[in-house]
């Protein structure tokens, strides 16, 4: 089965070749999600450990921090899940992901040519995608249970204790995945522009996602030259 090409992905010949990777809607969603996640991280960490309580100052007060955090969570949940439906197909795991993962050392030591050719996402990106998906589900569900203003009273105190523990463990994990995601995008030069301009260079696609590039070229999804 050939990986379905995502609508909107297209090649523009030129020097260098540019490849459309994310349309404006996906990018907008990505940045809303990113901003929400950062604000949630700051406000959540402020209530997670007293040494970071001073971060509540960014929101005006502890009371404000407590009040806005869950609402930002709702924004994150909605924007992430629009984003989710744009990306999930291309993130389904494949056998090649196991081969790729088994050679991850080659990637880190600069021998990416030893790794298999990949579609739009590599195993690391898929891990981040599904990890975020699962953790956001845990966070929204547990977050509702401990949302004091509206919902906490509908749950027993033992249930709220489970929820607050699950919420903090999931938050720690998602922050770790977030750091991994940001760092991987920085380390792999040329990646950030996929989320700013929406395009990557042909060389970037050839190097990291050659199967995706071949498919785009093969299906002649070639846009007009720039």
């Amino acid at each position, binding site marked *: *089965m050939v990986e379905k090409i995502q609508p909107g992905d297209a090649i523009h*010949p030129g020097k260098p*070749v540019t490849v459309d990777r994310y349309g404006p809607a996906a990018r907008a969603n990505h940045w809303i999600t990113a901003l929400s996640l950062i604000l949630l991280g700051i406000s959540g960490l402020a*209530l*997670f*450990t*007293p040494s970071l*309580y001073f971060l*509540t100052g960014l929101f005006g*007060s*502890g*009371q404000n*921090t*407590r*009040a806005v955090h869950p609402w930002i969570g709702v924004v994150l949940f909605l924007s992430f899940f629009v984003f989710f439906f744009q990306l999930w197909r291309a993130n*389904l795991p*494949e*056998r*090649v992901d196991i*081969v790729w993962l088994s050679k991850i050392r080659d*990637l*880190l030591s*600069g021998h*990416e040519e*030893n790794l*298999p*050719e990949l579609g739009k996402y590599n195993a690391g990106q898929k891990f981040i995608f599904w990890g975020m998906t699962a953790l956001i589900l845990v966070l929204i569900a547990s977050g509702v249970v*401990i949302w*004091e*203003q509206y919902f906490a009273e509908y749950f027993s*105190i*033992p249930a*709220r*204790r*489970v929820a*607050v*523990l699950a919420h*903090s463990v999931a938050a*720690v994990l998602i*922050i*770790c995945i977030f*750091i*991994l995601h940001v*760092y991987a995008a*920085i*380390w*792999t*030069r*040329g990646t950030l522009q996929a989320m700013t301009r929406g395009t990557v*260079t*042909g*060389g*970037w696609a*050839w*190097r990291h996602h*050659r*199967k995706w*590039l*071949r498919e785009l*070229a093969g299906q002649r999804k070639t846009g007009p030259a720039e």
Partner: protein
Amino acid sequence: MDSPRTAVSNPPTQPMASNLGPGDLIRRSATAELPPPTRKLTEVAKLIDVSKCIGCKACQSACVEWNDTHPAVGENVGAYENPHDLTENMFTLMRFTEWVNPETDSLEWLIRKDGCMHCADPGCLKACPAPGAIVQYSNGIVDFIHENCIGCGYCVKGCPFNIPRISKADHRSYKCTLCSDRVAVGQGPACAKACPTGAIVFGTKADMIKHAEGRITDLKSRGYANAGLYDPPGVGGTHVMYVLHHNDKPHIYANLPDDPKISPLVQGWKGVTKYVGIAAMSMMAVGSVIHGVFARPNRVAAEDEENAEKLVEGKPVPPPNHATTSEGR
């Protein structure tokens, strides 16, 4: 001036300065480095003798009066509890249980004055994320400092007795103060002072334990073989204690916990999760920075761009590496 010894004395007519200050704090929520207390006050306690309580609710009225709370007008749902639960406007509540003693087959009407137990090891304080929203004085009183409270409800999860209530109006947590403002000026709690039967007494914790012993001896002589003092060790003892006629089964008194402890979930949340979590997040961040500084970035080579251009122009490019490329899902 040390802690008051009784709730029955009347206050002097002259104004008095508060005797509970920052130097009396032995714990302060979300505060790691609390200066040691400047003196040690004698521990106080309120002793509630369930066997003497007639359920008149004078204590509830006194509490509302003293704390100037405004409970809503109640609604009769066929139970004696009024209101039906503790609220941010009702810090203490008489809970009524009709219990048939299986040994004697007689009905016993158990009336327990519910409210904060002023635990020596307070779960509410342990859970609270806001610096100084919950404090514990060296006399044993656990007090909520409302201006520091952020209304998160963590104290509700931390408390083993289901005591704190968050106001929907001002988003702050409320509970019995053990009348810290009265104790600070040498007075006992309002509820103890109002009790017409002497079921609520107040004094030093040592005196209250001694007083309870007398009551327990009396109850035993009247056939309550399991009478005893409820001062649960799981929370380090409490500064509100009960004399129970059936101390072998506290749960019959409207679900008073048999062996209250701070939940292991709360301990795990505030303990290992916090330390391991912070370590993990810091390691990720520091590891990324180190890798970013010392490792070579993964850059696209000029050759990659050339290959992409050839591919797009339809010129021959290196073929897919079939040994390592999967042909399908």
